[in-house]
C-alpha cells in the first residue's frame, strides 16, 4: 500500500515572542491518504494556519515528525523545503497571490520556471492547466483584467501545473462572493486523483469535503468523515 500523503506524528510548533512562548500546535497527529478531500476547521487562534504552514513545508515543526509522501521533511533546510514545495505541493490562497502585471499564462508557468522546465514545455503545460480550470480564453489577461473567481481559478491552475501530490487551499473562497465560491469549490472537488487539504472557518465550505478535522488550541478535537456536498447535491438531484 502506498504511503499516506500526509503523516503527522505528535507535531508541535512553539513560537518564542520575547519571553513568552506561544504553543500554536500542541501535539497534532494526522494522516491523510491519497485522494482525500479534507477540510481543516477551527476558529482563529486554533492553530489551523500554523498546521497549514507546516503541512505546506513553509514552516518546520518544533518537535514531532512530518512525513510527506513517505519522506521525512521535518528537518530539511530552507532550500530543500523550497524544492519539496515546488515538486509536491500546490498552494491556493485566500488573496489569490498572483504576480501583478504578469499574464495568467506566466503566473501558471512560475512553478515550472523554478522546476527548470524548458520554455516550450512550460507554455504547453500552463496552457493545459488553464484549460483544465476553464480559462483557455484568458491566457494573456493580467490579474487586474480578471474577476475574483477567474483569478482564483488561475491560482488553482498554478497549483495544479506541477501535478502535485497535495493541494493546500487556505480559505480559497474568503475573498469571493457566494456564487463564485460555489464555482471554485465545485472546481476543487472535481479534481480527480489529487489530495486536497482545505483550511476554512466556514461550515458551508467545509461541507464540500469528505472529512472534517477540527482544531482547537493547537489540538485536533474532532476528525469526522461525511458525505461531501457534491454527492449530496447529486443525490438530491
Amino acid at each position: 500500500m502506498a504511503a499516506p500523503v500526509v503523516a503527522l506524528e505528535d507535531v508541535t510548533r512553539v513560537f518564542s515572542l520575547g519571553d513568552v512562548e506561544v504553543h500554536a500546535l500542541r501535539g497534532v497527529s494526522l494522516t491523510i491518504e491519497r485522494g482525500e478531500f479534507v477540510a481543516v476547521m477551527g476558529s482563529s487562534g486554533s492553530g489551523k494556519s500554523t498546521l497549514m504552514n507546516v503541512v505546506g513545508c513553509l514552516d518546520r515543526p518544533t518537535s514531532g515528525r512530518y512525513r510527506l509522501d513517505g519522506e521525512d521533511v521535518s528537518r530539511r533546510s530552507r532550500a530543500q523545503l523550497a524544492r519539496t514545495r515546488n515538486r509536491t505541493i500546490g498552494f491556493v490562497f485566500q488573496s489569490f497571490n498572483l504576480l501583478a502585471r504578469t499574464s495568467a499564462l506566466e503566473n501558471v508557468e512560475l512553478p515550472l520556471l523554478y522546476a527548470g522546465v524548458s520554455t516550450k514545455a512550460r507554455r504547453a503545460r500552463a496552457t493545459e492547466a488553464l484549460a483544465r480550470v476553464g480559462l483557455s480564453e484568458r491566457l494573456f489577461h493580467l490579474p487586474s483584467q480578471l474577476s475574483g473567481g477567474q483569478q482564483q481559478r488561475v491560482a488553482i491552475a498554478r497549483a495544479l501545473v506541477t501535478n502535485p501530490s497535495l493541494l493546500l487551499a487556505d480559505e480559497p473562497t474568503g475573498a469571493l462572493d457566494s456564487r463564485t465560491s460555489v464555482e471554485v469549490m465545485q472546481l476543487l472537488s472535481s479534481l480527480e486523483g489529487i489530495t486536497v487539504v482545505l483550511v476554512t472557518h466556514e461550515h458551508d465550505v467545509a461541507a464540500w469535503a469528505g472529512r472534517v478535522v477540527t482544531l482547537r488550541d493547537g489540538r485536533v478535537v474532532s476528525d469526522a468523515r461525511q458525505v461531501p456536498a457534491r454527492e449530496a447535491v447529486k443525490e438530491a438531484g
Partner: protein
Amino acid sequence: MGPLQTTRLALRALKRNTLRSFLTALGIIIGVAAVIAMVAIGEGARAQVEETFAAMGTNLLIVMPGSSSAGGLRGGFGTQPTLTWDDLRALQTEVPAVEAAAPTLRLQAQVQSDEQNWGTSVQGTTPTYFDVRRWRPRLGPPMTEADLEAGAKVMWLGLTVAEKLFGPDADPLGHLVRVKGVPFTVVGVLEKKGQSPMGQDYDDTVFVPSSTFKTRLNPGLGNFLSGVIFVQVRAGESTQRAQRQVTALLRDRHRLGEGQEDDFSIRNLAEVASAQQQGADTLSALLASIAAVSLLVGGIGIMNIMLVSVTERTREIGIRMAVGATPAQILAQFLVEALALAIVGGLLGVGVGLLAAQQLSASFGWPLLVRPDVVALATGFSGLVGVGFGLYPAVKASRMDPITALRFE
C-alpha cells in the same frame, strides 16, 4: 533556472519601472562617464605638457647673461651682456657633461619681403643650435659651418614668418628679405615647432648665421654675446650635474669670489618639465578620484533602490518562494537585477564618457586620449559596484520568511 532565465526575469523587472531603473542607472552612467572623461582630460593635459617639452627638448640648459646694475637699479637677467664668445668655446670644450653649446643672438626687428613686412625675433646662431633643438628645415638645406665662416647673408624662416611674408604654402626660397636694410636670401623654411611651455610661438622667428648677425645686424658688442647659450647635456648625464659644472666654469671664468652673486642664470628645462608633469599628474589623479567617488555614489543609488524594490516586492518574493523558488534563486534574481542596472549603466556611461572626452579634447585643442584600460576598468568597476551594492538587498530578499512575506500588504 538557468542564467539566461534569471537575466530575462531581471530585465523584465527593470523594464516594469523604466524611469526608476533609468534614474538608478544614471548614477552609474554619470560615474563611469566621469571617470572616462576625467582620465581623458588628465591624459590630454599630460600629453600637452609632454608635447611642448618634446618641442623644447628636456636635456637642455639655457644660460642667460646677468643683470645690469646701475646705482642700485638692477635690470634683471639678460639686461647686461656678461657671456662672451670665449665662455661659449669653454662650455663646448671644457665641461664634461656638456655635449654641445650654441649661441642665439636675438634682436626684435621688422623683416621685409617685396610685398609684406612683419615684426619678429631675428636670431643669429650656429648649425649646432639646430642639432640641439632637433629642428630641421622643411624646405632647403640646413645651416652649415661654411655659411658661418663665409658670413653669408642667408636666412631660414620660421613657419609663421614664412606664412606672414609669403602666404601659406608659398615657396619663398630664393626671395630677398631685408632686416634693418640688410638683404638676406631665404635659403630655408623650418619645420613647425609649435608652442613653448609658456605659450610662445616658436615658429614666429627667423634665423641667420651668428657671424652675419654679429657683423651686419648688431656689431656693437665685441666679444660679448648678445643673447643666450643653449647647452645640450650629454646623454646619460643628469641635467643637475651639468648645471653644477657649467655654473662652476662660468663663476671661475668671470672671477666671482665666494659670496658674490652669479652674473648669469641657468634655466634647467628638465626641472620645469618635471614640475609641469607633476602638476598634470596631480590633476589627473584628482579628477580620477572625484570621478571614482561619483561612481561610488552611483553604487549607493543602486543599493538604495534595490532595498526599496525588495521591500515593495515582499509579496512577490513570498509567492515565488511558495511555488518553490529556493533562497539561492531569489538571491540570484535580485543580484542580477542590480548587476544589470550597473552594467547597462556602465556601458551607457562608456558611450557618454567617450562623447564627452571627444568634446572636451576638441574644445581644449588637446589630442583625444582614451585609454582602453580605463574604459575596461570603469566598466568592470561598475559591474563590481553592482554586485557589491546589490548583494545586501539580494541577501535580504533571500532570507525572507515565505509565511511573513505572503502576508505582507
